[in-house]
């Protein structure tokens, strides 16, 4: 009986101190973590366009419409991107989907009519280190989305191919990471389809 009490009390005290320490640290770090995530997203949204300096939400009342029960697929999270002189560079739209192991989140840069891809920036992934992680910024794979060798841009819907591309709707897969390449292409296709659907339903583009 005495031992049982001793065991229960010990575990209770250990749990109490652990819970207290965690809640203190969580309180101290939560605002910083949220801020870091916001900064990462903001930087990614601007980085999909060379010279991107300012981002403005395309759908100003998106949060309110989502809260009212609108389907998120019809309201893609999109920003108009301007350069330092205020010229519009295009739209940056957030996309996500399932990769090889877990969710891939990315920002896609497209032309103002969503006809061409202008840039790709993966924000979050859990792909295989050294293989699928080549979808991340700085590798060869995302460069195709910024512009094709010999001019022109990718035009969704995209198809993943192994080897050299022969048309503007073909993406060259990463060697030994076809599934990750395919996952990115699928996310791009779905995101562009969603954005094109929104733009077709709201010809003014503003939707305000």
């Amino acid at each position, binding site marked *: 009986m005495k031992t049982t009490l001793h*065991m229960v009390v010990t*575990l209770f005290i250990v749990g109490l101190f652990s819970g207290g320490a965690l809640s203190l640290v*969580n309180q101290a770090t939560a605002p910083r973590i949220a801020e870091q995530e916001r900064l990462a997203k903001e930087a990614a949204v601007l980085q999909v366009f060379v010279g991107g300096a300012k981002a403005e939400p395309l759908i100003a009342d998106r949060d309110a419409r989502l809260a009212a029960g609108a389907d998120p697929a019809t309201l893609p999270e999109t920003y108009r991107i301007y350069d330092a002189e205020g010229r519009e560079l295009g739209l940056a739209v957030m996309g996500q989907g399932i990769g090889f192991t877990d969710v891939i989140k990315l920002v896609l840069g497209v032309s103002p009519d969503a006809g061409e891809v202008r840039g790709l920036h993966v924000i979050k992934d859990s792909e295989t*280190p050294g293989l699928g992680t080549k979808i991340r910024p700085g590798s060869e794979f995302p460069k195709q989305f910024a512009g094709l060798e010999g001019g022109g841009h990718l035009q969704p819907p995209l198809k993943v191919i192994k080897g050299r591309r022969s048309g503007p709707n073909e993406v060259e897969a990463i060697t030994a990471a076809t599934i990750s390449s395919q996952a990115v292409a699928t996310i791009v296709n779905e995101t562009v389809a969603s954005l094109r659907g929104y733009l077709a339903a709201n010809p003014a583009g503003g939707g305000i």
Partner: protein
Amino acid sequence: MSKDASAVRDLVKGLWDENPILRQLLGLCPTLAVSTSVNNSLGMGVAATFVLICSSVLISLIRGAVPKQVRIATYIVVIATFVTLVDLSMKAWFPALSASLGAFIPLIVVNCIILGRAEAFASKNGPGRSAIDALGMGAGFTATLVVLGAVRELLGAGQLMGRTVLPGFEPWIVMILPAGAFLVLGLMLGTANAVNQRRQESARRALRDAWLQKAGS
């Protein structure tokens, strides 16, 4: 003298004689998973060492008060708390490192090295010696990870710490994959065993020679 000597022994035994990976074969899961590059190895090693030192000291301090029936549960709660602290702090102050180590930090909770040192050392020794022991074990873990990571990064990507050092080298992709981790770790374990065997043999020979000499005279 004996106190200083034993402190030094507590520290250096983790580097080779009781190296957690090469001699005790503990913590192999994170070892195989994160050692794809030197930077990942360093990050994992330093984070695990920090958790190891903090939890060893705390467990040593409360070792008299914890009934032995619930000691493992207590250790796990203490370790899990420190791991979460490290995870949150890294997310808040080192987002880049946190992004690259991602899923591996929570794995420190089940890293056998930390529970192993708590059970084998910290629960039987004072906080000072436990901290020194943890530091030595952490250093041995980190050093082994870095060597493993360097070999894999060099052969698997032609790079070291993210910089290309073998231009024009066709990377062996298998080295980045789990199979490469098993191959390199196996070779390292074999080398460590060979070195230890040779050492033991020469010690035995020295002992025999000394005995023969004594018998002869």
